């Protein structure tokens, strides 16, 4: 045979080899607890579930959470910024070095101008891209950020109102949306619309339908209120985090029993927060439950205003010692809870060395109450406000009733004031002195403990009392204020960790809250899904998992 003939045969063989049937696309369908698709324009709503599904998938911030390990606390690592430093002379100025070679989904480059544009979308009211609807979820989480300035293409200077060492942590919440894409959409708005604010609104609306960020997933299909489809971003800058699965389909399923039914009938491969009572059925059918301690705390926040019964340290400690958290976990929540000993558990860099050990010790509790002047006949009346449901509230009414019954053993008469979830939030912001509290001396609102401000500062700093932030009970302790300031001004990471641990220690020793539980973020997955890691975080990395067909 001639070499040409051989070549032809080789070619034919090669072509037929390539004509093998293509491997079917791998798809993971997820049922979320949200009632609607969280906003897709960069700053998600619906709390942390929003960040989990439409934030960290399509977008990133200058810093991100390390979601790779299940056995250690999740910490901040470089994201779109490779490094940062505060100006030694003027601690309100930070320099951030940006990651080179990153592009948005629409192809435009990520650079310093993009960072400035994104900061101004929520901080500069006269900027064309300013969007009031995104301010609420961003500004409050980075309260000290004031301005951004591009120094060169890959360097940005950020300015704060006062020295604030928490800034790099706060920045994980500011997601970078593509300015070039937005501008194109802005120019594309019909010329008949003259008002720039209206044009801006429409541009953002169009952006939400055709999102462009830098994340490992790209938007592929969007039906408002019904479904969001994300596909792998092959051009993602970190090859290790390019998704192994081709497509994610996100479906809102707010009703717990419907969500469970969808999983059991095979309509979805993964559901968030299965109803605890359905867990045994789910496991029986071969599905896998993933759960891990989350930076989430389920507490009672005490009122510390004049005349509140909780002003007595003995009473606060007694309450903490009087609840059998293990019984609550095993009996009520089917094991889906971690009993708390504080905001941060042992092993976390911010745990410190508190001397007061929170455990179930009803005898000590009763002894403390007796010292405080209470007894079986002279009982202490307290009232707590909570909600009937709500994201992160776990099972608020049964759990509160459990606490009510537990505390009854230690001379507490607990009255529950169950109100609507949204109203509870509003009351939380208003504070214990407001009429809306209706005489409640405690409030049960769960909180995230991912970053220092969220976890401690907003509750313990006397300046954070309403209307500024969530120090609902008006805690006013100069020592707390001192430790908060120390942490805020400690710019060396190790020093800051020590300062935060000192703050935490004191909060435990002062029994600042009634700590009950940490949520474990349970989710049920099809056994076909492998290599999924659930870190100690509200968020997960969807990039590592694979699904067998």
């Amino acid at each position: 045979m001639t070499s040409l003939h051989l070549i032809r045969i080789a070619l034919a063989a090669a072509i037929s080899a390539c004509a093998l049937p293509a491997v079917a696309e791998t798809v993971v369908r997820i049922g979320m607890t949200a009632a609607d698709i969280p906003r897709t324009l960069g700053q998600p709503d619906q709390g942390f579930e929003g960040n989990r599904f439409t934030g960290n998938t399509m977008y990133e911030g200058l810093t991100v959470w390390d979601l790779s390990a299940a056995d250690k606390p999740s910490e901040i690592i470089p994201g779109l910024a490779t490094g940062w430093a505060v100006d030694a002379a003027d601690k309100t100025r930070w320099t951030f070095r940006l990651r080179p070679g990153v592009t948005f989904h629409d192809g435009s480059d990520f650079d310093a101008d993009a960072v400035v544009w994104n900061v101004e979308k929520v901080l500069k009211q006269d900027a064309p891209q300013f969007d009031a609807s995104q301010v609420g979820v961003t500004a409050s989480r980075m309260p000290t950020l004031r301005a951004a300035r591009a120094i060169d293409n890959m360097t940005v200077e950020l300015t704060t109102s006062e020295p604030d060492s928490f800034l790099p942590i706060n920045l994980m919440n500011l997601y970078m949306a593509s300015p070039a894409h937005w501008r194109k959409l802005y120019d594309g708005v019909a010329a008949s619309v003259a008002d720039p604010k209206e044009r801006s609104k429409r541009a953002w609306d169009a952006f939400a339908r055709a999102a462009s960020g830098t994340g490992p997933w790209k938007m592929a299909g969007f039906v408002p209120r019904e479904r969001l489809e994300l596909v792998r971003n092959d051009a993602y800058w970190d090859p290790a985090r390019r998704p192994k699965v081709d497509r994610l389909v996100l479906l809102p399923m707010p009703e717990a029993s419907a969500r469970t039914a969808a999983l059991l009938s095979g309509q979805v491969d993964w559901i968030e927060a299965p109803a605890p009572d359905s867990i045994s059925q789910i496991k029986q059918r071969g599905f896998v439950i993933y759960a891990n301690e989350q930076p989430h705390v389920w507490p009672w926040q005490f009122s510390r205003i004049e005349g509140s019964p909780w002003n007595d340290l003995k009473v606060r400690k007694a309450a903490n010692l009087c609840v059998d958290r293990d019984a609550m976990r095993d009996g009520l929540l089917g094991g889906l809870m971690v009993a708390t000993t504080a905001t941060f558990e042992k092993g976390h860099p911010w745990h410190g060395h508190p001397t007061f050990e929170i455990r179930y010790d009803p005898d000590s509790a009763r002894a403390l109450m007796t010292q405080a002047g209470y007894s079986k006949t002279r009982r202490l009346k307290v009232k707590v406000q909570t909600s009937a449901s709500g994201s992160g509230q776990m099972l608020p009414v049964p759990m509160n009733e459990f606490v009510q019954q537990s505390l009854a053993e230690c001379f507490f008469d607990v009255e529950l004031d169950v109100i609507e979830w949204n109203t509870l939030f509003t009351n939380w912001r208003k504070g214990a002195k407001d009429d809306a509290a209706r005489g409640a001396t405690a409030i049960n609102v769960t909180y995230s403990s991912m970053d220092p401000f969220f976890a401690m500062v907003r509750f313990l700093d006397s300046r954070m009392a309403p209307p500024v932030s969530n120090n609902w009970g008006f805690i006013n302790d100069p020592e707390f204020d001192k430790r908060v300031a120390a942490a805020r001004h400690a710019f060396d990471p190790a020093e800051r960790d020590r300062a935060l641990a000192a703050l935490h220690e004191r909060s435990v020793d002062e029994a600042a809250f009634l700590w009950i539980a940490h949520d474990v973020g349970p989710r049920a997955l099809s056994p076909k899904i492998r290599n999924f890691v659930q870190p100690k975080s509200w968020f997960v990395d969807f990039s590592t998992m694979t699904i067998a067909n």
Partner: protein
Amino acid sequence: MLIYVVKRLVLMLPVVLCVALVCFLLVHIAPGDPLIAVLPPDASAELAEQMKHVYGFDRPLPVQFGLWAWHALQGNLGTSIATGRPVAEEVSRAVGNTVMLAAVAATIGFALGLLFGFLAAYFRDSWIDRVVTTVAIAGVSMPHYWLGMVLVIIFSVVLGWLPAVGAGPGGSTSWAWDWAHMRFLVLPAVTLSVIPMGIVTRTVRALVGDLLTQEFVLALRAKGLAETRVFRHVAKNAAPTATAVMGLQLGYLLGGSILVETVFSWPGTGLLLNSAIFQRDLPLLQGTILVLALFFVVLNLAVDVLQAVIDPRIRRS
């Protein structure tokens, strides 16, 4: 006849205005923060005040109503606070989905209702009658949303024949009238049809049963008229009231599907309303209630006119 219709149309206008007013008031007397969707709980009160101003909630109520009504007349129902999307667009999509569900449920319910009703009336007091009446009464006595959940357990979880939630494998926008999509309609439509089926059965049974004992029927039969012709006379006499009842049930289906839509996550106006209420999304809530109410007003008018057409005695001076 024409005068009657015109008069009713004219009288509808103040009704529409009052409906709009009631919608607006209902939504604004609600306690709680209208900006809860865009303001997380950790936002400070100053920020909350600022946002209130940006969204125009600090203006006096009559001004807010006037602005809203004026825009609504032009077809602009405002923008949803939670999603930033125009309300009119969300509502029109949802209305489409609900109408589809309601239409299928109505078809099932009315068809079965008419069938059962006539059967029960013709075979009055026989075992057929008893069975049918029991089924009908069971239908109206059952908390239908709960029936929906039970059906899901049986047909989705245990048997795996039908999907548990949703409006189609690709969402409602990619709807097609093939089995892959229609299987999503089956359980919600059946659940929703149970109450109308029961009510129509009972009404038709009572109506037709009465008519069959009346003298004119005996007379027609004595005259030797074929049973089918008698049937036609009976049907014509039963038509006005039956139509009125079915019209009312159609209204119930359109507006009352919220519970069924919640259980099945069917993306219709009921689910939209549910979200709007719990997110306190005022523009969306106002817009949805207004559209639903207006639909109903027009439907009531249509039913009244239809009744008047069929039975001239109904027209009152």
